[in-house]
Protein backbone atom coordinates (compact mmCIF):
# COMPACT_ATOMS: atom_id res chain seq x y z
CA UNK A 1 0.00 0.00 0.00
CA UNK A 2 1.25 3.53 -0.76
CA UNK A 3 2.81 5.99 1.68
CA UNK A 4 -0.18 8.28 2.11
CA UNK A 5 -2.22 5.44 3.61
CA UNK A 6 -0.66 6.17 7.02
CA UNK A 7 -2.33 9.59 6.86
CA UNK A 8 -5.72 8.01 6.31
CA UNK A 9 -5.37 5.31 8.91
CA UNK A 10 -6.03 7.69 11.78
CA UNK A 11 -9.13 9.12 10.11
CA UNK A 12 -11.36 6.04 10.24
CA UNK A 13 -9.04 4.46 7.68
CA UNK A 14 -10.30 0.95 8.25
CA UNK A 15 -13.85 1.88 7.40
CA UNK A 16 -12.77 3.69 4.25
CA UNK A 17 -10.69 0.66 3.27
CA UNK A 18 -13.80 -1.50 3.68
CA UNK A 19 -15.70 0.90 1.40
CA UNK A 20 -12.90 0.84 -1.17
CA UNK A 21 -12.99 -2.96 -1.14
CA UNK A 22 -16.74 -3.03 -1.66
CA UNK A 23 -16.59 -0.47 -4.47
CA UNK A 24 -13.91 -2.57 -6.14
CA UNK A 25 -11.32 0.17 -6.69
CA UNK A 26 -8.43 -1.62 -4.99
CA UNK A 27 -5.82 -3.38 -7.13
CA UNK A 28 -5.44 -7.17 -7.07
CA UNK A 29 -2.91 -7.20 -4.24
CA UNK A 30 -4.90 -4.89 -1.95
CA UNK A 31 -8.09 -6.81 -2.73
CA UNK A 32 -6.46 -10.04 -1.67
CA UNK A 33 -5.22 -8.46 1.56
CA UNK A 34 -8.69 -7.09 2.33
CA UNK A 35 -10.32 -10.44 1.55
CA UNK A 36 -7.92 -12.09 3.95
CA UNK A 37 -8.89 -9.60 6.67
CA UNK A 38 -12.58 -10.30 6.09
CA UNK A 39 -11.91 -13.96 6.77
CA UNK A 40 -9.95 -13.34 9.97
CA UNK A 41 -11.22 -10.02 11.42
CA UNK A 42 -14.91 -10.04 12.35
CA UNK A 43 -15.02 -6.28 12.97
CA UNK A 44 -13.63 -5.56 9.52
CA UNK A 45 -16.03 -8.11 8.00
CA UNK A 46 -18.96 -6.25 9.60
CA UNK A 47 -17.70 -2.95 8.16
CA UNK A 48 -17.62 -4.56 4.71
CA UNK A 49 -21.15 -5.93 5.19
CA UNK A 50 -22.42 -2.47 6.14
CA UNK A 51 -20.93 -0.86 3.05
CA UNK A 52 -22.34 -3.66 0.86
CA UNK A 53 -25.77 -2.90 2.28
CA UNK A 54 -25.27 0.88 1.76
CA UNK A 55 -24.25 0.51 -1.89
CA UNK A 56 -26.65 -2.32 -2.79
CA UNK A 57 -29.47 -0.03 -4.13
CA UNK A 58 -27.11 1.14 -6.89
CA UNK A 59 -27.33 -2.39 -8.31
CA UNK A 60 -30.95 -1.72 -9.28
CA UNK A 61 -29.46 -0.07 -12.38
CA UNK A 62 -28.19 -3.45 -13.59
CA UNK A 63 -30.56 -5.16 -16.01
CA UNK A 64 -31.10 -8.91 -15.62
CA UNK A 65 -29.86 -11.02 -18.55
CA UNK A 66 -30.90 -14.66 -18.99
CA UNK A 67 -27.96 -17.02 -18.72
CA UNK A 68 -27.69 -19.89 -21.24
CA UNK A 69 -29.03 -23.31 -20.17
CA UNK A 70 -25.53 -24.75 -20.45
CA UNK A 71 -24.46 -22.67 -17.44
CA UNK A 72 -26.82 -24.46 -15.05
CA UNK A 73 -25.77 -27.83 -16.43
CA UNK A 74 -22.11 -26.96 -15.88
CA UNK A 75 -22.86 -25.85 -12.31
CA UNK A 76 -24.72 -29.09 -11.62
CA UNK A 77 -21.92 -31.20 -13.07
CA UNK A 78 -19.37 -29.45 -10.85
CA UNK A 79 -21.44 -29.61 -7.67
CA UNK A 80 -23.22 -32.89 -8.06
CA UNK A 81 -20.98 -34.80 -10.49
CA UNK A 82 -23.83 -36.73 -12.01
CA UNK A 83 -25.57 -36.59 -15.33
CA UNK A 84 -29.22 -37.56 -15.33
CA UNK A 85 -29.24 -40.73 -17.45
CA UNK A 86 -33.01 -40.57 -17.96
CA UNK A 87 -32.81 -37.10 -19.51
CA UNK A 88 -32.24 -37.30 -23.25
CA UNK A 89 -29.32 -35.38 -24.75
CA UNK A 90 -30.48 -32.15 -26.37
CA UNK A 91 -30.56 -32.95 -30.09
CA UNK A 92 -29.49 -29.40 -30.93
CA UNK A 93 -26.49 -29.43 -28.63
CA UNK A 94 -23.51 -29.66 -30.97
CA UNK A 95 -20.58 -31.96 -30.23
CA UNK A 96 -21.34 -32.24 -26.54
CA UNK A 97 -18.63 -34.81 -26.04
CA UNK A 98 -16.04 -32.20 -26.83
CA UNK A 99 -17.39 -29.62 -24.41
CA UNK A 100 -14.68 -29.56 -21.82
CA UNK A 101 -16.88 -28.00 -19.13
CA UNK A 102 -18.18 -31.50 -18.45
CA UNK A 103 -14.70 -32.81 -17.79
CA UNK A 104 -13.82 -30.31 -15.08
CA UNK A 105 -14.28 -32.60 -12.11
CA UNK A 106 -15.90 -35.62 -13.66
CA UNK A 107 -15.21 -39.00 -12.24
CA UNK A 108 -14.85 -41.84 -14.74
CA UNK A 109 -18.21 -43.25 -13.73
CA UNK A 110 -19.90 -39.99 -14.69
CA UNK A 111 -17.87 -39.70 -17.91
CA UNK A 112 -18.76 -43.24 -18.99
CA UNK A 113 -22.45 -42.58 -18.23
CA UNK A 114 -22.34 -39.36 -20.24
CA UNK A 115 -20.84 -41.22 -23.19
CA UNK A 116 -23.52 -43.92 -22.88
CA UNK A 117 -26.27 -41.31 -22.95
CA UNK A 118 -24.75 -39.58 -25.97
CA UNK A 119 -24.28 -42.82 -27.86
CA UNK A 120 -27.84 -43.95 -27.16
CA UNK A 121 -29.21 -40.87 -28.90
CA UNK A 122 -26.88 -41.13 -31.89
CA UNK A 123 -27.71 -44.57 -33.19
CA UNK A 124 -27.24 -43.51 -36.81
CA UNK A 125 -23.63 -42.57 -36.21
CA UNK A 126 -22.86 -45.91 -34.59
CA UNK A 127 -24.40 -47.83 -37.52
CA UNK A 128 -22.27 -45.80 -39.90
CA UNK A 129 -19.15 -46.53 -37.91
CA UNK A 130 -19.82 -50.28 -37.94
CA UNK A 131 -20.12 -50.32 -41.73
CA UNK A 132 -17.10 -48.17 -42.55
CA UNK A 133 -14.60 -47.96 -39.71
CA UNK A 134 -12.30 -45.01 -40.31
CA UNK A 135 -8.64 -45.80 -40.93
CA UNK A 136 -7.28 -42.77 -39.13
CA UNK A 137 -8.51 -40.95 -36.06
CA UNK A 138 -7.16 -38.03 -34.06
CA UNK A 139 -7.88 -36.44 -30.71
CA UNK A 140 -6.76 -33.20 -29.12
CA UNK A 141 -6.40 -33.82 -25.38
CA UNK A 142 -6.93 -30.76 -23.20
CA UNK A 143 -8.59 -29.64 -19.96
CA UNK A 144 -9.98 -26.45 -18.45
CA UNK A 145 -8.38 -27.34 -15.13
CA UNK A 146 -4.81 -28.11 -16.16
CA UNK A 147 -2.27 -26.92 -18.72
CA UNK A 148 -1.71 -30.48 -19.98
CA UNK A 149 -2.08 -30.75 -23.75
CA UNK A 150 -1.48 -33.75 -25.96
CA UNK A 151 -2.34 -34.67 -29.51
CA UNK A 152 -3.09 -38.31 -30.28
CA UNK A 153 -3.48 -39.99 -33.65
CA UNK A 154 -4.43 -43.58 -34.38
CA UNK A 155 -3.81 -45.51 -37.59
CA UNK A 156 -5.91 -48.66 -37.89
CA UNK A 157 -3.94 -50.22 -40.74
CA UNK A 158 -0.69 -50.29 -38.80
CA UNK A 159 -2.39 -50.33 -35.37
CA UNK A 160 -0.23 -47.50 -34.16
CA UNK A 161 -1.01 -44.76 -31.66
CA UNK A 162 1.03 -41.59 -31.99
CA UNK A 163 1.13 -39.37 -28.93
CA UNK A 164 2.72 -35.94 -28.86
CA UNK A 165 2.98 -33.84 -25.71
CA UNK A 166 2.41 -30.11 -26.25
CA UNK A 167 2.38 -28.96 -22.64
CA UNK A 168 2.31 -30.17 -19.04
CA UNK A 169 3.99 -33.06 -17.28
CA UNK A 170 3.46 -35.33 -14.29
CA UNK A 171 5.19 -34.44 -11.03
CA UNK A 172 8.04 -36.56 -9.68
CA UNK A 173 6.86 -39.93 -8.26
CA UNK A 174 3.75 -39.76 -10.47
CA UNK A 175 2.97 -40.88 -13.98
CA UNK A 176 0.49 -40.01 -16.67
CA UNK A 177 -1.57 -42.99 -17.82
CA UNK A 178 -3.44 -43.10 -21.12
CA UNK A 179 -6.90 -44.66 -21.40
CA UNK A 180 -9.33 -45.34 -24.19
CA UNK A 181 -12.99 -45.15 -23.20
CA UNK A 182 -14.99 -46.85 -25.97
CA UNK A 183 -18.67 -45.94 -26.25
CA UNK A 184 -20.71 -47.56 -23.49
CA UNK A 185 -17.72 -49.26 -21.85
CA UNK A 186 -15.31 -48.96 -18.96
CA UNK A 187 -11.93 -47.30 -19.57
CA UNK A 188 -9.16 -49.52 -20.93
CA UNK A 189 -5.58 -48.69 -20.04
CA UNK A 190 -3.13 -48.12 -22.85
CA UNK A 191 -0.28 -47.89 -20.39
CA UNK A 192 1.86 -45.30 -18.70
CA UNK A 193 2.81 -42.36 -20.94
CA UNK A 194 6.61 -42.19 -21.29
CA UNK A 195 8.29 -38.86 -20.49
CA UNK A 196 9.43 -38.28 -24.10
CA UNK A 197 7.51 -35.57 -25.90
CA UNK A 198 6.63 -37.75 -28.90
CA UNK A 199 6.11 -41.50 -28.96
CA UNK A 200 4.44 -44.11 -31.09
CA UNK A 201 3.35 -47.50 -29.87
CA UNK A 202 1.14 -50.41 -30.81
CA UNK A 203 -1.82 -51.14 -28.51
CA UNK A 204 -2.84 -54.78 -28.05
CA UNK A 205 -4.42 -56.14 -31.27
CA UNK A 206 -7.61 -57.22 -29.49
CA UNK A 207 -8.54 -53.62 -28.60
CA UNK A 208 -7.58 -52.14 -31.99
CA UNK A 209 -11.19 -52.38 -33.17
CA UNK A 210 -12.39 -50.69 -30.01
CA UNK A 211 -10.06 -47.76 -30.56
CA UNK A 212 -11.03 -47.56 -34.24
CA UNK A 213 -14.72 -47.32 -33.32
CA UNK A 214 -14.04 -44.03 -31.55
CA UNK A 215 -14.60 -42.93 -27.98
CA UNK A 216 -12.58 -40.77 -25.68
CA UNK A 217 -8.83 -40.70 -25.05
CA UNK A 218 -8.11 -39.61 -21.49
CA UNK A 219 -4.93 -39.09 -19.49
CA UNK A 220 -5.03 -39.43 -15.71
CA UNK A 221 -2.43 -38.63 -13.08
CA UNK A 222 -1.54 -41.85 -11.27
CA UNK A 223 1.10 -43.12 -8.87
CA UNK A 224 4.51 -44.03 -10.34
CA UNK A 225 4.08 -47.02 -12.63
CA UNK A 226 0.40 -46.33 -13.27
CA UNK A 227 -2.77 -47.47 -11.59
CA UNK A 228 -2.19 -50.78 -9.78
CA UNK A 229 -5.48 -52.42 -10.69
CA UNK A 230 -6.24 -51.39 -14.28
CA UNK A 231 -8.87 -48.86 -13.21
CA UNK A 232 -8.29 -45.12 -13.27
CA UNK A 233 -7.63 -43.81 -9.77
CA UNK A 234 -6.32 -40.30 -10.24
CA UNK A 235 -7.90 -37.17 -11.74
CA UNK A 236 -8.34 -36.66 -15.49
CA UNK A 237 -5.71 -34.12 -16.58
CA UNK A 238 -6.58 -34.05 -20.27
CA UNK A 239 -9.14 -35.68 -22.51
CA UNK A 240 -10.52 -35.49 -26.02
CA UNK A 241 -12.84 -37.45 -28.25
CA UNK A 242 -11.47 -39.39 -31.18
CA UNK A 243 -12.68 -38.13 -34.49
CA UNK A 244 -11.93 -38.76 -38.13
CA UNK A 245 -9.04 -36.79 -39.55
Amino acid sequence: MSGDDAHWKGVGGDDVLAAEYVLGVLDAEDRAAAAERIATDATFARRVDRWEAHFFPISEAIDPVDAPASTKRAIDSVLFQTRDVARPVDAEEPGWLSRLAFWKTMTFAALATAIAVGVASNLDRIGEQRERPPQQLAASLTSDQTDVRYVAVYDRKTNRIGLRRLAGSAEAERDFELWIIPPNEAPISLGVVPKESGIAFAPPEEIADKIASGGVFAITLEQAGGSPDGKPKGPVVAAGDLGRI
Partner: protein
Amino acid sequence: MQGDDLTRLIVRISLKDRAAFDVLYSKTSAKLFGVCLRVLNNRSDAEEALQEVYVKLWEKADRFSISDQSPMSWMIAIARNHAIDRLRQRRRPTAELSEAFEIADPTPGPEVLAMQTHERARIDACLAELDADKASAVQGAYLNGDSYAELAARHGVPMNTMRTWLRRSLMKLRECLER
Protein backbone atom coordinates in the same frame (compact mmCIF):
# COMPACT_ATOMS: atom_id res chain seq x y z
CA MET B 1 -38.98 -12.20 -5.18
CA GLN B 2 -39.68 -11.48 -1.51
CA GLY B 3 -36.71 -11.28 0.82
CA ASP B 4 -38.29 -13.83 3.19
CA ASP B 5 -38.61 -16.39 0.39
CA LEU B 6 -34.99 -15.92 -0.61
CA THR B 7 -33.88 -16.24 3.01
CA ARG B 8 -35.78 -19.52 3.36
CA LEU B 9 -34.20 -20.84 0.18
CA ILE B 10 -30.69 -19.93 1.32
CA VAL B 11 -31.23 -21.62 4.67
CA ARG B 12 -32.43 -24.77 2.92
CA ILE B 13 -29.41 -24.63 0.63
CA SER B 14 -27.13 -24.48 3.66
CA LEU B 15 -28.71 -27.84 4.56
CA LYS B 16 -27.76 -29.12 1.08
CA ASP B 17 -31.29 -28.97 -0.33
CA ARG B 18 -30.71 -29.26 -4.06
CA ALA B 19 -34.29 -28.43 -5.03
CA ALA B 20 -34.00 -25.12 -3.16
CA PHE B 21 -30.76 -24.40 -5.03
CA ASP B 22 -32.52 -24.97 -8.37
CA VAL B 23 -35.29 -22.55 -7.38
CA LEU B 24 -32.81 -19.92 -6.20
CA TYR B 25 -30.95 -20.23 -9.49
CA SER B 26 -34.09 -19.81 -11.57
CA LYS B 27 -35.15 -16.73 -9.59
CA THR B 28 -31.79 -14.94 -9.32
CA SER B 29 -29.42 -16.07 -12.08
CA ALA B 30 -30.52 -13.41 -14.58
CA LYS B 31 -29.72 -10.60 -12.15
CA LEU B 32 -26.37 -12.08 -11.16
CA PHE B 33 -25.52 -12.74 -14.82
CA GLY B 34 -26.26 -9.07 -15.51
CA VAL B 35 -23.86 -8.14 -12.69
CA CYS B 36 -21.09 -10.35 -14.12
CA LEU B 37 -21.64 -9.06 -17.67
CA ARG B 38 -21.47 -5.47 -16.48
CA VAL B 39 -18.13 -5.97 -14.75
CA LEU B 40 -16.48 -8.35 -17.21
CA ASN B 41 -17.91 -7.02 -20.49
CA ASN B 42 -17.34 -10.42 -22.10
CA ARG B 43 -20.00 -13.07 -22.46
CA SER B 44 -17.95 -16.24 -22.07
CA ASP B 45 -16.01 -14.79 -19.10
CA ALA B 46 -19.31 -13.81 -17.52
CA GLU B 47 -20.77 -17.31 -18.06
CA GLU B 48 -17.77 -18.92 -16.36
CA ALA B 49 -17.89 -16.37 -13.55
CA LEU B 50 -21.61 -17.06 -13.04
CA GLN B 51 -20.93 -20.80 -12.73
CA GLU B 52 -18.28 -20.12 -10.11
CA VAL B 53 -20.58 -17.71 -8.26
CA TYR B 54 -23.34 -20.30 -7.87
CA VAL B 55 -20.82 -22.92 -6.75
CA LYS B 56 -19.73 -20.38 -4.11
CA LEU B 57 -23.34 -19.71 -3.12
CA TRP B 58 -23.90 -23.44 -2.61
CA GLU B 59 -20.74 -23.75 -0.54
CA LYS B 60 -21.15 -20.55 1.50
CA ALA B 61 -24.91 -20.63 2.12
CA ASP B 62 -24.31 -21.26 5.83
CA ARG B 63 -22.38 -17.98 6.09
CA PHE B 64 -25.43 -15.92 5.10
CA SER B 65 -27.02 -16.11 8.52
CA ILE B 66 -24.01 -14.46 10.15
CA SER B 67 -23.84 -11.59 7.68
CA ASP B 68 -25.74 -8.33 8.23
CA GLN B 69 -27.17 -8.22 4.74
CA SER B 70 -30.44 -8.91 3.02
CA PRO B 71 -30.37 -12.04 0.82
CA MET B 72 -30.18 -10.20 -2.51
CA SER B 73 -27.50 -7.84 -1.21
CA TRP B 74 -25.49 -10.83 0.04
CA MET B 75 -25.74 -12.64 -3.29
CA ILE B 76 -24.95 -9.59 -5.39
CA ALA B 77 -21.93 -8.92 -3.17
CA ILE B 78 -20.62 -12.42 -3.84
CA ALA B 79 -21.23 -12.05 -7.59
CA ARG B 80 -19.64 -8.59 -7.82
CA ASN B 81 -16.60 -9.55 -5.75
CA HIS B 82 -16.01 -12.68 -7.78
CA ALA B 83 -16.39 -10.86 -11.09
CA ILE B 84 -14.02 -8.09 -9.97
CA ASP B 85 -11.46 -10.67 -8.79
CA ARG B 86 -11.59 -12.21 -12.28
CA LEU B 87 -11.32 -8.77 -13.86
CA ARG B 88 -8.20 -7.98 -11.83
CA GLN B 89 -6.61 -11.24 -12.94
CA ARG B 90 -6.86 -10.34 -16.61
CA ARG B 91 -3.48 -9.29 -17.88
CA ARG B 92 -3.77 -5.69 -19.08
CA PRO B 93 -1.02 -4.08 -21.15
CA THR B 94 -0.18 -0.72 -19.56
CA ALA B 95 -0.60 1.04 -22.92
CA GLU B 96 -4.37 0.49 -22.57
CA LEU B 97 -4.64 2.89 -19.64
CA SER B 98 -3.12 5.86 -21.44
CA GLU B 99 -5.53 5.27 -24.31
CA ALA B 100 -8.43 5.59 -21.86
CA PHE B 101 -7.30 9.11 -20.91
CA GLU B 102 -10.51 11.18 -20.88
CA ILE B 103 -11.97 14.05 -18.91
CA ALA B 104 -15.05 13.03 -16.91
CA ASP B 105 -18.42 14.33 -18.08
CA PRO B 106 -19.77 16.53 -15.27
CA THR B 107 -23.43 15.82 -16.00
CA PRO B 108 -25.00 12.93 -14.02
CA GLY B 109 -24.56 9.57 -15.70
CA PRO B 110 -27.45 7.23 -16.60
CA GLU B 111 -26.97 5.31 -13.35
CA VAL B 112 -27.97 8.35 -11.30
CA LEU B 113 -31.04 8.99 -13.42
CA ALA B 114 -32.12 5.34 -13.21
CA MET B 115 -31.93 5.44 -9.44
CA GLN B 116 -34.03 8.57 -9.19
CA THR B 117 -37.00 6.74 -10.65
CA HIS B 118 -36.95 4.18 -7.80
CA GLU B 119 -37.88 4.60 -4.20
CA ARG B 120 -35.33 6.91 -2.60
CA ALA B 121 -32.65 4.94 -0.83
CA ARG B 122 -30.34 6.65 1.62
CA ILE B 123 -27.40 6.16 -0.72
CA ASP B 124 -29.33 7.99 -3.43
CA ALA B 125 -29.85 11.05 -1.22
CA CYS B 126 -26.26 10.98 0.03
CA LEU B 127 -24.77 10.63 -3.45
CA ALA B 128 -26.80 13.69 -4.48
CA GLU B 129 -24.85 15.68 -1.84
CA LEU B 130 -21.55 14.96 -3.62
CA ASP B 131 -20.28 16.78 -6.72
CA ALA B 132 -21.86 15.15 -9.76
CA ASP B 133 -18.56 13.83 -11.11
CA LYS B 134 -17.62 12.30 -7.75
CA ALA B 135 -21.05 10.68 -7.43
CA SER B 136 -20.71 9.37 -10.96
CA ALA B 137 -17.25 7.94 -10.16
CA VAL B 138 -18.60 6.14 -7.08
CA GLN B 139 -21.51 4.60 -8.95
CA GLY B 140 -19.39 3.75 -11.99
CA ALA B 141 -16.87 2.01 -9.73
CA TYR B 142 -19.61 0.00 -8.01
CA LEU B 143 -21.29 -1.05 -11.26
CA ASN B 144 -18.23 -1.63 -13.45
CA GLY B 145 -15.50 -2.62 -10.98
CA ASP B 146 -13.22 0.22 -12.08
CA SER B 147 -9.82 0.20 -10.42
CA TYR B 148 -8.10 3.33 -9.07
CA ALA B 149 -5.78 3.22 -12.07
CA GLU B 150 -8.70 3.22 -14.50
CA LEU B 151 -10.59 5.96 -12.66
CA ALA B 152 -7.47 8.12 -12.55
CA ALA B 153 -6.88 7.65 -16.28
CA ARG B 154 -10.50 8.40 -17.11
CA HIS B 155 -10.59 11.58 -15.03
CA GLY B 156 -7.15 12.67 -16.22
CA VAL B 157 -5.56 12.91 -12.77
CA PRO B 158 -2.70 11.13 -10.99
CA MET B 159 -3.65 8.06 -9.01
CA ASN B 160 -2.93 9.64 -5.63
CA THR B 161 -5.29 12.48 -6.47
CA MET B 162 -8.00 10.00 -7.43
CA ARG B 163 -7.47 8.13 -4.15
CA THR B 164 -7.79 11.37 -2.19
CA TRP B 165 -10.96 12.41 -4.07
CA LEU B 166 -12.59 9.03 -3.63
CA ARG B 167 -11.67 8.66 0.05
CA ARG B 168 -13.01 12.14 0.82
CA SER B 169 -16.20 11.23 -1.05
CA LEU B 170 -16.51 7.98 0.93
CA MET B 171 -16.08 9.81 4.21
CA LYS B 172 -18.76 12.33 3.21
CA LEU B 173 -21.06 9.47 2.25
CA ARG B 174 -20.48 7.75 5.56
CA GLU B 175 -21.20 10.91 7.50
CA CYS B 176 -24.43 11.35 5.52
CA LEU B 177 -25.48 7.69 5.83
CA GLU B 178 -25.02 7.70 9.59
CA ARG B 179 -27.03 10.86 10.23
